[in-house]
Each structure stands twice: as structure tokens, then as C-alpha cells.
């Protein structure tokens, strides 16, 4: 009986794990059906008078990326090259005027490695026009891609308790310290907009960080989540905790209790046309799905690029205003608690 009991005990312990995982052989998965490489175009024309930018790149096929067991370097791609496309002819038409773009080669340094980024910048500064259709034309590699978007007029900066906002932090130069919020659900009668919150470093913070335009993510990742000690150096507390992995969380812009009286937050509000709103909504679902096992349907994002292109071209009206702690508190209504990033 003792040996019987012991056998049962061993059998029970043997069952210690339900699932396993392994790296699948890519050839079992890559089934090249709609595999033609596509041109991806992205750009936002704003109502702010400035040089506008458009990015033209090429999709990457996964068959180019898998790491072979023999470590053959030809089997995978450089991380930052061969995606941007040069040699394109780019123009934007709005309100009867046509603006040409020129190709820019930007040298960037990423973790000590030098790369060249290609994008297109308008020859002249111009501003998008609210309530007008904006048309993009890109001629590249023997094909012509067009896209149109009508720029909605943006309303004043307020915090409406009926418009729950979700936070998405975009990386990249110049936007790393901007926490950007989008409406989560699609409701036809609701205005769609993007809210940007940018902490303006206090003089003490600038002294600590130097004059460079530091990436906000870098500040967080190097110094941890915003804390009371960090509050004395900069003013990110309004935004609450953000995730260095582009997490999505819910914020209450009115919860400014952690702000100093001298802290300033630059808030921007950008209007979204209904097609752009839907594009952003689907982008969010895609990002959520990548984080959780109980995600959404795997499917392609919508696009307004013609001729088989992907990406999105949008036109957004922008309002900006700086707020100090008291202005913000009196403006905002309570729409929930600050929560930690997911």
C-alpha cells in the first residue's frame, strides 16, 4: 500500500505544467499568398504653418527576417535600413494650391550605430486648411499613389467627462515626451480628436538633463516612474505613469495633485476625420492584441492610400495651449483615477 501511495504521489508531481512552447519552423508558417511588397505612406498635414513631412517606406516580408540556425547573416535584415524609400515625387494639394516636397536624408545615431533616415519635407512652409480636402500624390517606382483627407475643425481644449481618453505614447524624435490620447470607442456622434500632453521641463530639470531634447521615455526608463523626487526636476506628474513599452492606460488630466505650482504642461488638441479616427482605433486594437492572449481578430489596418498602398495620410487642425496647475484643475472634470500602465 505504501509503494502504491508513493507511486500515486510521483504521478501527481509529474504533472507540473499544462503547456509548453517552442520556436516554430518558419517554413510551416510563412505561406506567401498576398506577399507582394507594398509601399507604406504616412504623414499628417496640420493647420500649423510649418514645413510638413511625409514618409514613404516599403513593407518587410517576414521571410527576409528569420534567423537561420546556421546564423547566416544574409538571412535577416538590418534593423534600420532598406525600409525607407527614396526617389519619390511627393506633392500635396489643398485649397487649390499645390505644394511640392523634397527628399531629405537625415543621419541618426541609434545605440552607437549610424543610420540614414529618408523622408520628404515640403519645400515651403504651409498650413493645412480646416474643412478643406487635402490630397497627397506620391509617384514612386513606376506607380502613383494618392490619398485624400478632409481636415475637420477642432474644438476648444476641454476635458469632457463623456469622452474617456486612452493614452498611447509614441516613440520617435520630438514626440517621445508627448503622451497622446485617443477616444477608445467609435460613437458616431462624438467628435474625434487627439490630445497631446507634453511636460515642459522646469529650469532645474533642464539643468539636470542638459539642453538636448531628451526622449521622455529615456527619462522614465533611466529614472523610473515619475516620483516625488523626480517631480522636483520636471513636471510629468500630470500625465501619470506611462509605459516605456507604449502601453495604453487611462488618465485623468484633471488629477494634477502632483504638479508643482510652477509646472507647465503644453496641451495640444488635433482633430481627426472619421476615417483617421477609425484607423487609430484599429491601430489601438492591434497593439492591445499584441500584448494579450485574449485579443482581437488579426486583420489589416484600414488605409486611404490608393493603388495597393498601406499606411494613412491625414489632415488635422491643431490648437495648443500651455496650462499651469490651477488652470488645469479648474478646467478638468473628474473622469476617473490615474491608473498604472498596463
Amino acid at each position: 500500500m505504501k509503494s502504491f501511495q508513493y507511486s500515486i504521489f510521483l504521478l501527481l508531481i509529474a504533472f507540473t505544467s499544462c503547456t509548453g512552447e517552442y520556436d516554430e519552423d518558419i517554413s510551416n508558417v510563412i505561406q506567401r499568398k498576398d506577399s507582394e511588397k507594398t509601399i507604406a505612406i504616412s504623414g499628417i498635414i496640420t493647420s500649423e504653418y510649418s514645413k510638413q513631412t511625409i514618409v514613404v517606406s516599403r513593407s518587410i516580408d517576414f521571410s527576409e527576417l528569420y534567423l537561420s540556425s546556421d546564423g547566416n547573416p544574409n538571412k535577416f535584415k538590418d534593423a534600420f535600413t532598406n525600409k525607407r524609400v527614396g526617389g519619390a515625387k511627393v506633392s500635396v494639394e489643398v485649397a487649390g494650391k499645390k505644394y511640392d516636397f523634397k527628399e531629405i536624408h537625415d543621419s541618426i545615431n541609434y545605440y552607437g550605430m549610424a543610420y540614414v533616415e529618408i523622408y520628404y519635407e515640403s519645400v515651403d512652409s504651409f498650413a493645412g486648411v480646416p474643412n478643406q480636402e487635402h490630397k497627397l500624390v506620391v509617384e514612386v517606382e513606376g506607380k502613383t499613389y494618392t490619398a485624400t483627407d478632409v481636415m475637420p475643425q477642432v474644438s476648444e481644449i476641454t476635458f469632457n467627462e463623456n469622452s474617456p481618453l486612452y493614452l498611447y505614447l509614441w516613440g520617435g524624435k520630438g514626440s517621445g515626451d508627448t503622451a497622446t490620447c485617443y477616444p477608445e470607442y467609435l460613437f458616431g456622434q462624438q467628435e474625434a480628436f487627439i490630445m497631446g500632453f507634453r511636460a515642459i521641463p522646469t529650469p532645474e530639470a533642464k539643468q539636470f538633463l542638459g539642453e538636448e531634447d531628451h526622449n521622455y521615455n529615456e527619462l522614465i526608463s533611466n529614472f523610473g516612474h515619475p516620483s516625488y523626487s523626480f517631480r522636483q526636476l520636471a513636471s510629468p506628474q500630470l500625465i501619470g505613469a506611462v509605459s516605456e513599452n507604449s502601453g495604453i492606460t487611462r488618465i485623468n488630466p484633471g488629477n494634477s495633485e502632483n504638479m508643482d505650482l510652477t509646472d507647465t504642461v503644453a496641451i495640444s488638441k488635433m482633430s481627426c476625420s472619421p476615417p483617421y479616427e477609425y484607423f487609430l482605433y484599429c491601430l489601438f486594437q492591434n497593439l492591445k492584441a499584441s500584448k494579450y492572449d485574449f485579443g482581437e481578430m488579426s486583420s489589416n489596418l484600414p488605409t486611404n492610400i490608393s493603388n495597393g498602398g498601406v499606411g494613412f495620410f491625414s489632415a488635422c487642425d491643431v490648437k495648443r495651449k500651455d496650462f499651469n496647475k490651477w488652470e488645469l484643475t479648474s478646467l478638468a472634470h473628474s473622469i476617473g483615477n490615474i491608473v498604472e500602465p498596463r
Partner: protein
Amino acid sequence: MKTFYKYIFLLTSVIAGFSAIAQDFSISGYVKDSASSEVIVGATIYEATTNTAVISNEYGFFSMRLKPGTYTLECSSLGAKTQTQNVQVADNMRVIFRLPSQSYDIDKVVVHARQQTSDVVTKHLSAKQIELMPSTFGVPDVIKVVQTMPGIKTIGDGTTGMYVRGGNRDQNMIRIDEANIYNVSHMYGYVSSFNPDMLNEVRFYNSYFSPEYGGRISSVLDAQMKEGNLNSFSGSALLSILTANATVEGPIKKDVASFFVAGRRSTLDIIHKFSDIVNVPAFYDVNAKVNCKINDKNRVFLSSYISSDYQKYPPFLESDALNVSGTARWISELRPKLFLTTSVVASKYSNKTNFLDSTKRTWLVGVNEYTAKSKLNWYISNNQKVLVGVQSSVSQLTPGKTGDVANSISDMQLFEPSLFANHTISVNNWTFMYGLRITQYHNFGEATWYTIDNGLAIAENKESSGIWNSYTCVEPRVHIAKKIKDSELSASFTRTSQSMQSLSNSKLNYSSLETWFCSSPNLKPVEAENFSVGYTLKKKNIGLLAEAYYRNIHNQIDYIDHAYLLANPYAESQVKAGKARAYGFEIAVNREGERNQISASYSFAKVLYDIPEIMDEQYRAPYDMPHDIKLQVTQRIKERWSCSALWVFASGRPGTFSQGYYEYKGTKIPIYNKRNSDSYPVYHRLDVSLHYNGKPHKHYEQNFSIGIFNVYGRKNILYYDFATDYAYIGGNLTTIKEQYNVKAYYFSAFVPNFTYKVSFK
């Protein structure tokens, strides 16, 4: 005048004489187990001289008509010894058969797989059969046994989801003692909600089902609980890797009232308290029943089912699911030919998920259902019976509630009255079954719903009282069969409808993140027309079943791209409705030998969705797996030893894989192939088990089984995870390269299991 009265008297006598010669009498009664007095369902009562056969119903009741005379009635049933009784028929009479169980050391150990060779209408499963089938963790499981039937599809290991002839997993009616079960699984689906110890009989319908059954379009799994031993106390205890079970039954008053209680609790979570593995699910369930004979013609049953599931998946979430149901039934033999059943059922299902991150969100889903049903069986003659009935259900649905009203889906209420009737007649080897069910689906009471236009919610509608939306579904059903010597040809047509649907777009089969909806102004009830033709042959010890079918589904829903169901008050805008069609055929062969049983089945099935608002061409359903092969062998080795093996093979299920990406503002955006145009690898595995049945002692019996799930360790994929990652390569690690990874997740391979059971009497 005298002469006139003489003639009248003579005529009356002649007529009375002829009447006496022509009049049939009713022989009715019950078939019971001789030891426990438990009723036996589906027993055959046969009279050879008139070639008359009838079947006992779900309460063990049978009714037969014979002319006056002397007859020998033979009563037989699976798992019981055949018994004969001589009867002298001169009036309506009562007959009770008490059949002794088959015991292992006397007769065959091998259990017949009737479901593969019986008529196409009803597939029966006995508790013994369930016990002997190889199971995932040594735990006998009725759902796992049903999944081994030809044409029943599953996706992935462990899951209790069934896909029957093109129907989704929420399109099967699964019930215990007339109570619908919404959460059919425990422990990620590795154990079903059916405790085999509590089962008396299970019937499965996937071809023709009586108009008595409604509310689901695809199949019916109808389980009946045991009633309890009316004669003496008995019990059992079982221990396996996953569960510890116990049952106790006995008379409350001998031959009058009895009780039965069966309980289970998970064991794995207890074991792993001593390890650092935290995401081990836990559950318990209890089935209880009281059976009381009011008098010879009236009986009352009270049964209940309670189950609770808890699983934690740190650091993301934990969930609690609760299933509670209660059934009160009164069966009454109004006349020898009239059998009335009235039942009242109340059930509650709730599933609460708590997110463990800083959001501290909750997600609550639930269904409360109240049903009253009455049906009258009229056994007109040996060859004819009529069923009529009425049913009324009220359901309160909580499709999804969070702590925030703005992110909750409004509760809904559904009133579902139905009328049904069925006529069965057998003439000259022909059998005709035809009937009609009429069901209405009414939304009523307080609710908020949204007008959806072009995928957006554009207007809010608040309802406060009364019926504010209705659908009526008419469901004709016909089955025709012709017996030709040892074979039978049959054809069926049924129309079925379904209001309540489960929405869950998780890639995990066992995800608890689902929501239950009912029909509404935005969602019509799903309706299906089902056509099938079948052929069965039973010759000596070989059986053959072949069936082909076609199913046309209307208002089939699927999710839009990027559908977001959780905490979305406009969740109805995330689905689109269209059509689906399914077709295929199933072939099963079974051979029953003295010491073994071998069965093999192959099925081909195709399921296509046609929903233009999602894709402008037909596409594969998420459970479209064309080929399916099952091989089972059960062999008696020695007097008390037997072994069994099960090999299953299935085509890989559809998937939507990404093939590349592009960048948008520094974010990688996957590029996917068309929906469901890819396939996971094929699925196959071999399970084996060895059974030992101990020598029966005076007061107890014991049996033991060990087995291995997935003997050759096939890594059947649960799902893929796609990601790109960066790799530093080169001799000085100064070059960043990008690589593409696909992680495959699979259920454990080569899983040993054991079960030890002791029964006391």
C-alpha cells in the same frame, strides 16, 4: 316485439364478441435496475410472435398494445442482463422489469458503442462506456467521449468545445436534467461539467431532433442524472490526477423515495500549493437529486447542480465562474397510454474576471434562466405515438458589466414561449417522424440598445417596460426511415433557430472572456435548415453508419476586423451577420467481438461563411477542419484486465497569419493574409489506457486505470505568437539585425494519468 328484442340482443352479443376479439389492451410499466430500482432508459421490450418492440422513455416508462392472449416479453438493455416475463393479457396491465446489471466477472467487459451503429437519430452513451474510453487525464468525461464520435470537431487539446456539422460551439444545447449548462468546462476545458458518476444516461442528437428541443441549431446533448438507489445505501470514491470524486445514494424511504449526491473537487491546485506554480485552476461541483414516488402513477424529482471554477493567470487576471441550477419535475401516468411530464427549471450562470493590473477592472457576464415546460406523450399504439407540449422561458442576460457604467453592456431580457408537437408512426418497415416547433423571441423590460449604422452606434434607445422587439420562428422537422433487412435508409429535414449566442474572439480555446447575447433589433435569431441522408447496417457483429448532410445557416455572425468586445457598450456593432453553409459526410464502422471492440470513423466537413460586410468572397469558418479520423480499440486481456487505445487525426484549423509588416510613425504594423486563409499544422495523437476491475467483494468493488495522453508526444499547436525581435550579431556585437520569431504553444505531450475508484454497497 319479442323477436325484435331477441335480434337486438343477438346483434349486441355478436358485436361485443367481435369487440372482445378485436380489442387491444395496454401493457405498460417501468424498466428498473434490480439492485437500485433506478429506472433504465432506452431499454427494449420485445414480443416475438407479433414482432412488436417498444423503447422505455427517459423515465423508464414503456407502453405496448397487445391483443388478449399469452405472450413472452423480453426486456434488454445495455449493461444489463436480459429478462423475460410471461404475461396473460386479458385487460390493461402493469409490468415491471427489474434487470440485473452486467458484472465484469460474469459477462462481457467490452461495452458496445451503440452510437456508431444505432439509428442515426439518437446516439446513446452509457456510464460504462464513458468510463472505459481513454480520457485526457484518466478522468472519465462524457464530452470527451462525444468528441470521439464521427464528425464532431474540436480545436485544440483540452477544450470541451464541440463543432457539429458546421455549427459553432455555442450552437449546441447541453443540459443536465433539463437545465441548460452555459459553462461546460472546468480547468481550461480539461474536465467537463459532467460528473460521470452522476449520469444515468446521455443522448446525443446531431441529425434529427424532436421539436421538444429548441433554442440551439446544431445539436443536443441531453444528460439525465441518476435517481438514487431506492433499496439500499451505496457510494463511491475516486481519485485521479485532476479530481477527487465522491458519491453517496440511498433510500429516504425504501421503494418510495431516494436521494443521490455526487461531488468533485480539483486536486491539482492542492498539490501545487507546495510548488511555485501559481496559475493552477481549481473547481468543485455537486450534483444532487431526490426522487419520490407519490403513488404508482405519479413521481416527483428534484435535482440541482452547483459548480464553481476559479483560475488565476498572473499578472493579468483571475476569474470566478459559477453555475447553479435546480429542476423540479413531476411525471404522471394519466392513462396507460398517456404520460405527462411537467418541469420547472431555474439556472444561474455568472463569470467574473478581475484584471490584476493597476486598472483593477472587472468583467462580469451572466445568464439567469427560468423555464416551465409541460409535455404529453400519447402512446396511441405500438406503432404510433404523439408528443405535444408547451414551454416558456425567461432569461436575464448580463452580456458584460464592468465597474464603470459607461463601459458596460446593457442587461437584456428575453421571453421565449414555444409550442411543439411530434407524431411518430411506423408502418411496414417505414418510420415517419414529423413535427413542428413554433418559438417566439421577445425582448422585454428595461434595456439600452444602440442603433447601428455603417458600423457605428449612432443613436441610443432606452426601453423601460413591455415587449419592444419580437421574432417568430417556425421550425418544421421531418424524419423518414425504411428498414431493409439488416439495414436502414433514412432522410431528415429540420429547421432550427437560436436567439442566444456567445461571443468570444479569444485565440485561446479555454478563455473565459466571453459574452452572451440574445437577439435584438440589431441581431436576428440564427436559423438553420438541416438536410441529411443516412444508411445504417447491422450484420452479426459488424455495424456500419454512413451519413451525408447539408446545412444552410442564416444570420450567422462573425466579428469585424479589430472587433473589441470587452467593456464595449456598442459590442453589437462589432459583429456582422450573413450566411454560412456546411456540408459533409461521415462514415463509421464498428466490430464487436467476444473480447474486443474496434471502431473507425472518417468524416469530411466543409464550413464556409458568406458575410459580405466582412469579406466580399466566401471564406473558411474558424472551425473549418475538413478531415477527421478516429480509431478506437478496446480489448479484454484477462478476466479483469482490459486496455483501450484511441487515435485521432484532424486537419489543421484555420488561422490568419501575418506575413510581414510596415512602419507607421515608428510602430510596426503587421500585414495579414486574408481571414482564415492559413492553416495550423494537422492534429493527431494517440491515447492508451489500461483498466483493472477488482474482484467484487461483498461490500465493495474497486477498479483502477492508468493511461497516457498523447503517447508519442505530438506537439499539437494551441496557437502561434508572432513577433519581431532584434538580435545583436557579429564578432563585436555591433550590428543590430532584426529577426522574425514564431512561438508555438502546445498542450503538454506524453501526459500520464491514473484513476482509482472504490464503490461501496
